[in-house]
């Protein structure tokens, strides 16, 4: 499929060799179009988290290059990152956890408070502003983490298996929330998951990574209607796409 818009970020030949000799990535080529929802599938340990950290600027590639649209690397708060674990500060209330990105740039006041409140309400946690993470369920903590990633209205949203530890009902609901949010605000999303079904349900495009050292070995456009809801999950079209992707995954990973 041709890239519809100019890529927000382009990775060329990105490799990562860890000091003690593990080669995690080997020549990753990847383009993310502005405003697209792309997923990354691959076996455990193939370097997905490493790749996400490199895109976020938290790790340096050992070889290869990252180019940003207009040569402008994202500023503070323009990238939202959701880790595999909720990664909240246990000593801070929900409000303060979500407000962290603002506090770190020294912003405060009524407008910030309103945005934080809105982000918390946006993930369905209105009324829990004063709760400590400890008082929340696993799914609620994950939603706090998502609210924190969204509160700055980032241009690029990186999610590292955010729903892996959740039960199916919660996961489906958070899937729908995430998809709705994406349709409203159109950030660029790179979503790492182990689930073929989740990837297909959410994405416009799914990339498949090989076993370690990871490379992108398949890149599949998801041809499904933009409006996705519970009905889609049971539709034959959805099943067909999932089957096709599973087959690609099995073939590529075995190869």
């Amino acid at each position, binding site marked *: 499929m041709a890239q519809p818009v100019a890529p927000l970020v382009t990775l060329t030949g990105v490799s990562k060799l860890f000091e003690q000799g593990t080669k995690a990535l080997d020549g990753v080529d990847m383009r993310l179009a502005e405003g697209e929802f792309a997923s990354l599938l691959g076996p455990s340990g193939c370097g997905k988290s490493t790749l996400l*950290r490199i895109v*976020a*600027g*938290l790790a340096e590639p050992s070889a290869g290059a990252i180019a940003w649209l207009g040569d402008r690397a994202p500023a*503070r*708060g323009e*990238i939202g*990152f959701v*880790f595999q*674990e909720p*990664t909240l*500060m*246990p*000593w*801070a209330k929900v409000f303060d956890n979500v407000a*962290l*990105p603002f*506090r*770190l*740039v020294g912003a405060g006041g009524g407008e910030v408070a309103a945005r934080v409140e809105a982000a918390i309400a946006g993930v369905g946690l209105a009324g829990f502003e004063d709760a*400590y*993470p*400890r008082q929340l369920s696993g799914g609620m903590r994950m939603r706090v983490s998502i609210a924190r990633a969204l509160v700055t209205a980032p241009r690029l949203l990186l999610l590292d298996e955010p729903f892996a530890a959740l039960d199916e009902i919660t996961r489906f609901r958070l899937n729908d929330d995430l998809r709705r949010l994406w349709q409203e605000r159109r950030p660029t999303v790179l979503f790492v998951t182990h689930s073929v079904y989740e990837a297909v349900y959410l994405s416009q495009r799914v990339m498949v990574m090989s076993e370690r050292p990871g490379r992108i070995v398949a890149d599949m456009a998801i041809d499904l209607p933009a409006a996705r809801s519970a009905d889609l999950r049971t539709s034959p079209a959805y099943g067909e796409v999932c089957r096709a992707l599973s087959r690609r995954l099995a073939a590529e990973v075995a190869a």
Partner: protein
Amino acid sequence: MSRSERLTRMLAPLGIGILLLALWQAAVAIEHVPAYILPGPAAIADSLWRNGPSLLASLWITFRITMAALLAAAGLGLLLAIAIAESRWVEIAVLPYAVALQVTPIVAIAPLIIIWVGSNFFSLLICAWLVAFFPVVANTTLGLKSADHNLRDLFLLYGATRWQRLWRLRLPTALPYFLSGLRISGGLALIGAVVAEFVAGTGGAETGIAFRILEAGYRLEIAKMFAALVLLALTGIAIYGALGWLNHWLLRHWHESVLRREP
């Protein structure tokens, strides 16, 4: 914990204590042990009552030294821990000396300090501080280095300054470690103060409780010695309890160690 269980928890140690005291008293009475070897609990209580005010005045002096040493250990220990955690260079350069001071017995250093500084409040304070210092440094350093890796990444992602990382991430993470170091130091500071007083061995106006123990020993006033020991032990327990309460109060909202699951 149910009401009855709480009651048992209070009564069980109390019961054991009373039983032991009764046995002690009985043994002393039956065997006619002389009071200058082992006085019975009744004689000790009597001595505590008669010498209470003067012993308490001495205890107050030792207590002040202990508290000052503990505060100094907390403050300076925290500062050194921050320096160590923030700079590898400081760690490499300073840590060996901190360890050396820690492993050298205070009884061996105290005479030197007393010779240099003189036998006064400050020399005793320094001795008590020396033993109380290390647990705070070691625990707090560990805590400062224990910040969650993903949270560190998050702070990096939002461009946090070094100061913000310290203040908003490393210090809160280290708080429980610091407090548990402080609890160890509380007991050690008291021991340090007592040891230093023993070594200094001065009389005069400002006599701490340890000197009163020595003095009572010389005069074979064993009951008074025991009375002073009782006060000393109670002080140690009170310090430990107060620090435990502080720990609980500061961490009550979030730390696993103080949270109880609601049934």
